[in-house]
């Protein structure tokens, strides 16, 4: 007995929806962090890498269901190229590259704490959406399981942004480093004591 068309449609819609969500979140992260556009060499490079990585990650999710053929001998050139593209998409760590490039692009801008706060939240959403899309996990139970930690993480994210807005107690590099270390220590302490 084959599944009813409505049920099949729902499954397809769910798969397409999660993949599209991941791609859109990735694109949103890149465009959010890229604005305003900077014209320095490093910023441009980071932007290009981020765009490529997000696009490739989206393509990887889109082509996830295409199987590899059993025999890859004596294939026509275009099929061989297509299989190489699929292998490239599936081998490299595109999401990790996108995250690193996006954060590096953010660093190129002047300090803007709440902008960074929103970027952090969006990047986490991008990674969760990617995971949901590629693993086929149900979004509801997964997010409910992570719910408390995500709320706590958002609070810490806001605290980090808040720390960044506090003016330095004394001028000099040392006070800035101290603020960073204080933020990290607070995050670590929260991770250790927060009950599951």
């Amino acid at each position, binding site marked *: 007995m084959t599944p009813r068309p409505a049920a099949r449609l729902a499954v397809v819609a769910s798969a397409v929806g999660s993949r599209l969500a991941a791609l859109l979140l990735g694109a949103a992260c890149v465009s959010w962090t890229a604005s305003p556009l900077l014209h320095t060499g490093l910023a441009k490079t980071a932007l290009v890498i981020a765009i490529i990585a997000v696009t490739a990650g989206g393509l990887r999710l889109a082509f996830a269901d295409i199987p590899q053929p059993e025999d890859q001998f004596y294939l026509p050139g275009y099929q061989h190229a297509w299989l190489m593209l699929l292998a490239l998409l599936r081998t490299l760590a595109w999401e990790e590259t996108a995250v690193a490039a996006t954060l590096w692009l*953010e660093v190129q801008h002047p*300090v803007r704490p709440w902008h960074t706060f929103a970027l952090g939240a969006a990047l*986490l959403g991008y990674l969760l959406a990617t995971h949901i899309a590629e693993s086929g996990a149900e979004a509801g139970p997964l997010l409910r399981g992570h719910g408390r930690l*995500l709320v706590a993480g958002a609070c810490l994210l806001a605290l980090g942004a808040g720390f960044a807005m506090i003016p330095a107690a004394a001028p000099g590099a040392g006070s800035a480093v101290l603020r960073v270390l204080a933020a990290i220590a607070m995050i670590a302490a929260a991770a*250790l004591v927060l009950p599951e």
Partner: protein
Amino acid sequence: MIPNGSGLLPPPRDATGLAGTGRGEAGRDDAVADDTGLDNAGSNTAGLGPSSEVMADEVTVDWRPSRHARRLLTLAAAGLLLAVLTRNPALAGVAAPPLLILGMARFASTSGHSTSGRGARPGRVSVRVGLTASRMYEGEPVAADVAVKRADGYDIRWVLHPGKGIEPGSATAVNGQAARFAFRVPRWGKREVGIVALTLHDRWRLAEGRVSLILPAVGCYPSPAVQRTEVVLSKLPNRLGEHRARVPGDGTEFAGIREFVPGDRQRAINWPASTRLGRLQVNTFAAERSQDVVLLVDATSDVGTPGESALDLGQRGAAGAARAYLDARDRVGVITYHWGGAHWLAPSLGRRQVYKILDLLLTSDSGYARGAIFSRLPRAALPPGALVVAFSPLLDGRFVEALRDMRERGFALIVVDVLNAAPPVRRRSADVAAARIWHMEQDAIRFSLRELGVPVVAWDGKEPLDLPLAPYTRRRFA
């Protein structure tokens, strides 16, 4: 799919017990589906029935961080590193949520502490694998059942990586403690079903426990061709059977009337004839005999489209002929001719012989025989006076020579020509000429066999075997 038809050949799923796995109906008490609730696993495969357990074992789980964990770690590490390098606490905040999730997952896995009550990650899990049939005919659906125990509280995902020549018939990725994967084998032969990858995800989906299960191999029999009539020799050996012989005997079929001689049974007296002729007349009956049939399969040349190749047709024809002759209570044997030798099975009777023949036919897949030498087959493999039905594309000269030799030794021989492909021809004159020469050579081979008294009938594999054999099934074959 060609129907099984006769009562001699039971449905293939019953063959699981007959063909040597040692599991009959009684062995199905331990069916995987019964104790794991697999009937809920896939409604479209439920019609395949319960499976017989083929493997139950405790396997080690290989735990490692998931891809999701690696991505979160990248986000956290990049955030922290850039925070220190740029002295920007907001970037440290970016690292906070992934660090929290990673820390919690680590804490829960090492301490076994969890509100859901699950303990530390299991190092070993109990896995059971079952198959609804280990032997089947081409194209028949079969299902593999897999189930895991002692993995409560984990998200479980099964993925089937089908082996070569296996066509999945259902989803190849299933979530749940038990799963059923339906598949088909489109072409005969011994096939590895494939590998089932079991992945256990913890609550946070940051650690993955992986187990790979190698599914057992299955044997796929060639679908028997339809054959309802048999070629019967004019001279039958003196053995009780179901074919009417020319000599009088104790059969049930009326043969004629003769004068009564002392010793005849009284109940055989034909009273109307006796009254008419004025002397006592008795009915005579024809003897009923069986014959030895040897099926000869030429496995040296496998030309044509896979699935419709000459060897495929030969296998299907031999399987159908074996069934037809065994239905008629003949003794049937088989010889498969390979490069370098032959495999053989002495003629015998009965249901078991069907499966012995089919099992032997599967060895044609190996391509090279280490069995007997074809020119020195033992007498048991080729008994004198046997009817030999050869399935061959007649491409191998040595095989053709062997057929001629067999005919000269007095065997009654029929060749079923299963060649259904020709060499590709380009439009060059040389190629066209070569193709013509090839066709003429083929015609010459067939002509020379016919000249020796060996009928060669062409069979395309689609029509029943009765049609090409009709001229020889209507009358006695010498």
